């Protein structure tokens, strides 16, 4: 063999060690930055803690009390639960505009099954959960099998579910007193218990556990990895052996199921079954997801971030209201602060990169 074919043999004798580079000595801030870089979900946590600190400083004990702080948790519970569903969907590069409608429809089904049809309340709840899952399945099927864009499918489903909800419920509210009397299980998520001055509801606990569970699943199971892969690049995921269709359908079904749970939690929060609730759930859940650092293009971000995102909005809202801003000023400032929160987030990511 001539030299030109032989030259590649030179590689045999090479140094086989792994390259090592200096690690710059970072100092405390540097270490924090590096740590945030490795755990990007914690960036919104930093923003959250900072905003609690600022409002605490401005408002003193009115805000910085166990009561007010746990109130924020309570006010965030529904958005947090729906946001968990939304996170799953957005991680697959989808979007679910029907979350609010599924939530309300499920709660109405639970109420009507109990009160109109007289079914045992446990069974009524199962019906509600099944309806939510089924609507989610329809979404998933249309998106994965028929290959329709998630935005359109869930937009259409939103209208369908909402109209069904009104037609089916005949716009009737089931009153809180009646529920408390005849089917208190429906209000389970509203049950409160106190730890000192802090007031927790079952809904809050459920939200926290749900997010923790999903964070575990996304990180530590094959299915979770597939969710990310599908959102990242569905073609690549398909070629490397992920069953993209099945993954998508399961994500939308789980999203529907979680929204149904949110519907149950909604009964607990507002006491009654009201067909007109949940109209802002879409926009609020998407906001929480995006402030939490999950990319709308899929495949990037963490569900923990969503929880912090939801709480950031909750803190701003209560803080501003307690400071006495009136409604339009509050909306204006929340608008500015949402942009500000994400700007800070981006900035932290940048300097810590």
């Amino acid at each position, binding site marked *: 063999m001539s030299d030109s074919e032989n030259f590649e043999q030179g590689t045999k004798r090479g140094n086989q060690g792994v390259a090592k580079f200096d690690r710059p000595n970072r100092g405390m801030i540097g270490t924090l930055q590096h740590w945030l870089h490795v755990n990007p979900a914690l960036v919104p946590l930093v923003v959250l803690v900072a905003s609690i600190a600022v409002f605490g400083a401005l408002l003193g004990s*009115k805000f910085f009390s166990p009561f007010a702080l746990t109130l924020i948790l309570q006010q965030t519970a529904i958005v947090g639960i729906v946001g968990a569903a939304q996170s799953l969907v957005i991680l697959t590069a989808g979007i679910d505009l029907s979350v609010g409608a599924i939530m309300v429809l499920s709660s109405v089904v639970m109420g009507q099954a109990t009160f109109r049809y007289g079914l045992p309340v446990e069974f009524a709840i199962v019906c509600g959960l099944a309806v939510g899952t089924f609507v989610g399945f329809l979404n998933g099927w249309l998106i994965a099998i028929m290959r329709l864009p998630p935005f359109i499918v869930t937009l259409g489903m939103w209208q369908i579910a909402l109209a069904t909800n009104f037609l089916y419920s005949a716009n009737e509210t089931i009153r809180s007193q009646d529920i408390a009397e005849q089917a208190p299980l429906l209000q389970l998520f509203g049950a409160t218990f106190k730890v000192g001055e802090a007031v927790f509801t079952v809904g809050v606990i459920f939200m926290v556990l749900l997010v923790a569970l999903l964070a575990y699943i996304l990180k530590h199971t094959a299915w979770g990895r597939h969710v990310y892969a599908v959102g990242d690049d569905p073609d690549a995921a398909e070629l490397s052996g992920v069953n993209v269709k099945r993954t998508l359908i399961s994500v939308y079904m789980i999203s529907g199921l979680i929204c149904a749970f949110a519907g149950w939690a909604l009964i607990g929060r507002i006491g009654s079954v*009201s067909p007109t609730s949940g109209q802002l759930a879409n926009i609020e859940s998407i906001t929480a997801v995006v402030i939490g650092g999950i990319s709308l293009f899929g495949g990037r971000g963490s569900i923990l971030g969503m929880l912090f995102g939801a709480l950031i909005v909750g803190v701003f809202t209560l803080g501003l209201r*307690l400071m006495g801003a009136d409604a339009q000023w509050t909306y204006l400032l929340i608008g500015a602060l949402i942009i500000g929160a994400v700007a800070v987030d981006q900035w932290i990511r940048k300097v810590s990169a």
Partner: protein
Amino acid sequence: DTVCLITKTDTNPFFVKMKEGAEAKATELGMTLKSFAGKIDGDHETQVAAIETCIADGAKGILLTASDTSSITGSVKQARDAGLLVIALDTPLDPIDAADATFATDNFLAGELIGKWALGTLGAEAANAKIAMLDLGVSQPSVDVLRDQGFLQGFGIDLADPNKWGDETDPRIVGNDVTAGNEEGGRKAMENLLAKDPMINVVYTINEPAAAGAYEALKSIGREKDVLIVSVDGGCPGVANVRDGVIGATSQQYPLLMASKGVEAIAAWAKDGTKPTNTEGKNFFDTGVTLITNTPVEGVDSIDAAKGAELCWG
């Protein structure tokens, strides 16, 4: 002392005026007013959160126009248990005694007045009327239903289920459509119904912005002169529209009165624990409703637009 005002939205001029009235009265009585509002009509959760915030804030009382009249009662109870006086404004709660008091227009009556006026104006022609019903939204909130059904009652049409609009079978009704209570929705809904039957000659509208939109639709096909438009609210632009012949008749309500009465009541409660009393023979304090038209009809009390303009609210 702090008093809270929680309205359905704060974009509707009706609530804007209500807020202004409350603010003026609060300043006069040396109280602090904190106002809250839902983002959109029907935004119930924001109202729940607002009640919680008021409790946290240590307010003396709450003035509330509820988006969901029966669902809100749980939160209202929470507030009352915490020692706040809760007064429903404009929209009675369900049940009405869930609040400490209610200062409101009788919305069914408001509808009935314009229904009777339309019937009287048409006279014998009423038998051949073609009616367009421009309602608020598909979720059919209570004011929406009350005014719609009141109008039909006044016009002499069978209501079927009085808790629901749209289930009537009278052939004179061309159709119901929803407007979101604004000009844009009013125009589109009117156009849709005109496409269905271009010879519509009576138009019921949920409020005056919707009426103004409907008028634009009629104008664009040159039929604005031969159609009766009736509405509810009595805001200044609406009254001006009565003067200009855009709206035939409107039922005026008095949000400023509701608000100032409400603030006074809470001030009294804060001072010595007195609770307000109801109007004779009603289970709420009726702030009154007046029909405004420049073409009065016999048997229906009314004032003219000039008079109405003195009483209008924004």
